[in-house]
């Protein structure tokens, strides 16, 4: 589905990603782990096209998308739940959800599927409230719902459980599990909440100082070697 090959990224002189490679598969959930500031968000932004890479390539279903703009990647089938939510503060909840349908056209572009309301009932209640007025957790739910509506081939989640109450974290876990089971989507989950990631992931990647220092199947996640890269 998605092949990342040796991508490098710099913030000015700071080398943030150093030859990161990975491969994501349809129907699989990949957990991206690492301490604070190792470059996880940076990597996800590079995949989304928000940040340019200085070297390396990104391929989606064999098609090279390394140089595409974010909106082109979105149209190619990538959806993104950014860290910090980034909902449209002055659009209503409903309009925010409609923005999730931006890649669609025709009637589909105007119908918000009922599923998201089932998943996040609070959104239905607050349909006409401005996105920016929601509580932190509500915004996070909105951001996830928005990404799901796009029906992407690859969904990128940057710390989706941040600020969300435990019961809904469970629900989100169930959704991810469901999506995985449906098998038509690749999931890239960047998560600090280890147990959550462990429960959902099929495979994992650990970043440290911009480099992939460990990776493997889910079973290997509990290796002390892996844990060491996550410890302080």
């Amino acid at each position, binding site marked *: 589905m998605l092949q990342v090959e040796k991508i490098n990224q710099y*913030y000015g002189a700071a080398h943030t990603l150093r030859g990161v490679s990975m491969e994501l598969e349809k129907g699989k959930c990949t957990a991206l782990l*690492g*301490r*604070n*500031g*190792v470059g996880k*968000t940076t990597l996800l932004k590079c995949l989304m096209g928000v940040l340019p890479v200085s070297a390396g390539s990104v391929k989606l279903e064999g098609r090279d998308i390394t140089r595409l703009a974010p909106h082109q990647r979105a149209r190619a089938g990538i959806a993104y739940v950014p*860290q*910090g939510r980034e909902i449209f503060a002055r659009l209503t909840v409903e309009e925010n959800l409609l923005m999730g349908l931006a890649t669609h056209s025709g009637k589909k572009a105007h119908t918000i599927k009922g599923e998201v309301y089932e998943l996040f009932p*609070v959104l239905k209640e607050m349909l006409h*409230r401005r996105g920016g*007025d*929601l*509580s*932190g*957790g*509500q915004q*996070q*739910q909105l951001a996830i719902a928005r990404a799901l509506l796009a029906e992407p081939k690859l969904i990128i989640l940057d*710390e989706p459980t*941040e*600020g*969300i*109450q*435990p*019961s*809904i*974290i*469970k*629900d989100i876990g169930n959704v991810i599990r469901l999506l995985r089971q449906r098998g038509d989507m690749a999931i890239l989950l960047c998560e*600090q*909440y*280890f147990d959550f990631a462990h429960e959902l992931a099929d495979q994992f990647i650990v970043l440290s100082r911009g480099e992939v220092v460990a990776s493997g199947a889910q079973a290997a996640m509990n290796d002390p070697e892996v844990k060491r890269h*996550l*410890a*302080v």
Partner: protein
Amino acid sequence: MSSMNDGRIALQGLDTTHGAILYLEEISVVFDGFRALNKLSLDISVGELRCIIGPNGAGKTTMMDVITGKTRPTSGTAFFGQTMDLSRMSEHEIAHAGIGRKFQRPTVFEQHTVFENLELAMKMDKRVRPTLFARLSSEQRGKIEEILKLIRLNGSEQRLAGLLSHGQKQWLEIGMLLMQEPQLILLDEPVAGMSDAETARTAELLNELRGKHSIMVVEHDMAFVTEIAQQGVVTVLHEGSVLAQGRMDEVQADERVIEVYLGR
């Protein structure tokens, strides 16, 4: 009304003769007809570490907004100590009186270096003239270095705070809070976005601060809450008022809390 003197270090000590540092009484906050807080009453004792949990949208952040003067309550009273009516004070007066806050979304001065962020937050006379003539004493410098180490940003002190990662900003904000030396610390989701290891460290830190400051922590990370609540009181907010209150294990066993918050 602000006076020429605001910003000066509060000279008179806080009157906490009745043992409580913060009283919220029947606070309601209404936004365009929506009740974010509904007759919320709560008090925090001196030196207490109080955990607050509750569903998304329960009103936790709004409550902190009320305490710090960011939002004016529609009705009800908020007192800091026996005498300070928070609803009559402006944000900076409240901060200066000794309430420090970490926001849910990390907010630091992005165009300032890490060092400058801490320096700005440092407890001192914050009026114009003293600020103009302020020079760092070696003692103050030492204090900053100490905090830098604590938040593990030593080495990054000359970086612009805007360039930090999410988690690093969280830490920096905690560091700024400590520089302020407030009597009451409000922490809105301090470990959101921190790795498990970092979370553990934060818990450690809070346990160290326990007793020296009064602390109010809002978190959704139950492991963390359990870790810091110890035998103390945990308050559960729901739809703008207190749903349940008690020790962590009691609260976790409460059917209503499981229903609206923890999930089955």
